[in-house]
């Protein structure tokens, strides 16, 4: 896997390379040790400085970082006993979403996770994480299974949108997403939504209705991708950074809007720098949330879920 370095990460990587070099010299000496210590401090300061002042567009880039953990990275770490469940029983299996069962520290869970590929071949197989109708129908099928056996659902979001293709339209992309929104509002087990990368449009929302909506720190979520918005409203996809600002797409923005319940901090320098650290953080958060949600009666759970959705919106009312 080639290391991809984003433009604004370069000062950090330069320091890290220098540190690696010094450490590999394998010479004992207090001078060198001191130099390493100084550099390490500088590295921390540089990361803090850069990551303390990220623009929205930089967050979007981090959310898309090719070394970021994807759904299966989390699932395999959290549940070594994971068993994938394929297919919608109508038409096909959609590899852009992974579904299946497993346990986290003994707790039973049903996973839904939008899955991107690590290389070109893998991405063609995963369709770049863009779901087709059979994907939404597979997700609904396994959610009904989870409901039947009272297993809570964890839905990991990482997509730039539903797939815009001929076949997807022929097989009712709109209907498939709409059906999921309708059904997910009434599934009688807890649904925990976590945005782990990017989340755009009905494509993300189609597996995104639930009781808690969490976002990792360096992720974004919106009605359309910044590029899509820019090409429609600016007639120029290159205005994507402006569109990201205008639509207010980051985790902090969504928290302000009251759509995101909580932002989960990532390891210093972003999730892509420390997969294991990120997985551990997420595991703790999931266990806390599931424990809380399990305390609610089914009626309370559904009532809260409904109220959460009903209260989203911003308008004025005269009189």
């Amino acid at each position, binding site marked *: 896997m080639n290391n991809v370095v984003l433009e604004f990460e370069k000062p950090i990587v330069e320091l890290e390379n220098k540190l690696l070099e010094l450490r590999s010299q394998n010479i004992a000496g207090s001078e060198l040790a001191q130099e390493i210590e100084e550099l390490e401090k500088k590295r921390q300061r540089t990361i803090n400085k850069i990551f303390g002042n990220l623009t929205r567009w930089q967050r979007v880039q981090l959310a898309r970082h090719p070394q970021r953990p994807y759904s299966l990275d989390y699932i395999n770490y959290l549940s070594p006993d994971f068993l994938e469940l394929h297919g919608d029983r109508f038409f096909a299996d959609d590899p852009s979403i992974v579904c299946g069962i497993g346990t986290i520290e003994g707790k039973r869970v049903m996973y839904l996770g939008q899955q991107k590929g690590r290389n070109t071949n893998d991405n063609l197989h995963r369709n770049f994480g863009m779901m087709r109708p059979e994907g939404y129908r597979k997700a609904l099928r396994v959610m009904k299974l989870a409901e039947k056996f009272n297993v809570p659902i964890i839905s990991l979001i990482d997509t730039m949108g539903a797939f815009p293709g001929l076949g997807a339209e022929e097989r*009712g*992309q709109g209907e498939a997403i709409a*059906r999921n929104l309708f059904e997910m509002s009434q599934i009688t087990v807890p649904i925990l939504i976590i945005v782990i990368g990017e989340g755009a449009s*009905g494509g993300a*929302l189609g597996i995104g*209705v639930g009781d808690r909506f969490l976002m990792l720190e360096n992720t974004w979520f919106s*009605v359309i991708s910044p590029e899509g918005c820019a090409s429609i409203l600016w007639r120029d996809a290159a205005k994507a950074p402006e569109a990201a600002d*205008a639509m207010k797409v980051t985790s902090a923005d969504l928290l302000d809007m009251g*759509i995101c319940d909580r932002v989960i901090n990532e390891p210093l320098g972003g999730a892509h720098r420390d997969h294991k650290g990120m997985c551990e953080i997420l595991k703790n958060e999931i266990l806390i949330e599931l424990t809380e949600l399990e305390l609610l009666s089914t009626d309370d759970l559904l009532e809260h879920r*409904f109220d959460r959705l009903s209260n989203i919106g911003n308008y004025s009312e005269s009189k």
Partner: protein
Amino acid sequence: MDWFRRKIEKIHPVQKKAIPDGLWIKCPTCSEILYKPELERLLSTCRKCGHHFRISPDIYVKLILDEGSAETLFTDLKSNDMLHFRAIKRYSAQLNTAIKKSGNQDAIQFYSGDIEGNPIVLGVMNFAFIGGSMGSVVGEKIVRGISLAEERSCPLIIICASGGARMQEGSYSLMQMAKTSARLARFSGKQGLFISVLTDPTTGGVTASFAMLGDVILAEPGALVGFAGQRVIKQTIGQDLPPGFQRAEFLLEKGFIDNIVTRSTMKSTLLKIILILHAK
């Protein structure tokens, strides 16, 4: 260079006949030249090929509700430019322009009224209002419309026409898809009847939420109905789209709508559905 000169003197270039502005219109499907007053008598459908022109919401109200029965609802709701959104235009300015031009407060109007004496709640979207896009106000009005239909135990009908979610409201607009769908799920659980009527065009987040959740889904002939926009699909697949793609007839063939209904038979069809399914 004689080849380029006209040799036959009798042929003269003809000046195009000027069509008086506003009185005639060309049918985009069959190119028939239509006389506007006649077109309006035919509910804005082409006398030759039956092409359904887009019409303003008040025409639907007259078409569907019994005369004098319509009462406008929820007129106090107004959109906010909560994100201070600015692309080439400011959202606040777009809103003001749309309100002035349409005389409506937003992209959907709700009415209570009767169809041959049967009370219904009717929502009519307006594509001319920022592309009929769904923002917080459209979502909230739909939720209130559903609640009223539930309270009165009467059917809900929505005439859809929309480009999708309203980008200028960011994620607030996206979440209206979930908000309206969740409310419909409850309505459905209480035996509520929802008829969705798809008109040209119904796309994006509206298709992927309430529009496709009707107990019965009707469409006008030729209406464009789909999730992804045609330009985006073309770019993705790198080829031209087949003729008739994403039109009402295509959706009927693929099994996603119940029937295609012309404007002239819309009211009688709605009445039939209500009388049979909603019998008390």
